[in-house]
């Protein structure tokens, strides 16, 4: 690989690391809700600080979202590849990464609470 190409790769890596650090260290809003979207509709919103298990209907049988200690993950997923479950636990402090279950057409993502609580 040429020197110029190494420089471009190094710059791309630096930009990625900076973006990840920004997302992790940016000032947090006072309140968050976790939203679950099926196709184009938000079908559920829940408080990540309240422990619970929610069932979500999807295109191939749905899945459950377990919430515990401010974190959430997918369990009992009825999909062929189980990527959504393999994504593991997500939390406010970790990142803004959404959990996606493409066979079920379900996306679980964090969003700021409209009332800030």
């Amino acid at each position, binding site marked *: *690989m040429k020197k110029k*190409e190494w420089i471009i*790769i190094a710059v791309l890596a630096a930009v*990625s*690391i900076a973006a990840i650090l920004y997302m992790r260290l940016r000032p947090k809003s006072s309140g968050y809700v976790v939203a679950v*979207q099926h196709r184009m509709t938000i079908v559920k919103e829940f408080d990540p600080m309240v422990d619970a298990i929610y069932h979500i209907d999807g295109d191939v049988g749905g899945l459950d979202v377990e919430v515990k200690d401010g974190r959430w993950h997918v369990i009992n997923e009825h999909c062929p*590849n189980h990527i959504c479950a393999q*994504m593991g636990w997500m939390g406010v402090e970790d990142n803004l990464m*959404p959990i996606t279950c493409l066979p079920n057409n379900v996306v679980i*993502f964090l969003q700021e609470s409209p009332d800030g609580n």
Partner: protein
Amino acid sequence: MGIERNRRFTYLAMLSAVAIALNLLESIYIGPIFGVLRLGLANIAALLALKLMGRKEMVIVNVMRVVIGNLLRGTIFGSTFWISSGGVLLSSTVMVLLNMADASILFTSICGSIAHSMGQVLIVSFLYKQIGMTAILPYLLLGSIPTGIAIGVTANLVLKHIRPLTEKKR
């Protein structure tokens, strides 16, 4: 001339078959790393097609991989198909442009891998109308660099053991 044409056709068919097999193998037996990042083994066949035969042949291998791979998995024209198509469209474009600029195979592989991830995320963001999906991009971009290097190194090793298509004129 006829023999040369037949050899090219055979190479194209074989590389397409390798791409489809690697694609299926990866989706069935090798799950995503950290839940989101895929190795992109089928890109080895695409890189070989690009370096051995040319741009048009690489696009054919990539299209065959997406269409036949999704047909075999039963996901044709579903969300998975369109997401794969978005990744392949962007990665093919980037790899063709880099090949025209005479970039190294390793750099082409890394940039192809990055473009593939970006294409997929853009399609997911569009399909679900969730711009927040792009939050995953820095992770994918960073992860695509080592996977791109691994795929590029593998393709380079394979290239050394494949007889070039066009024989030198005596």
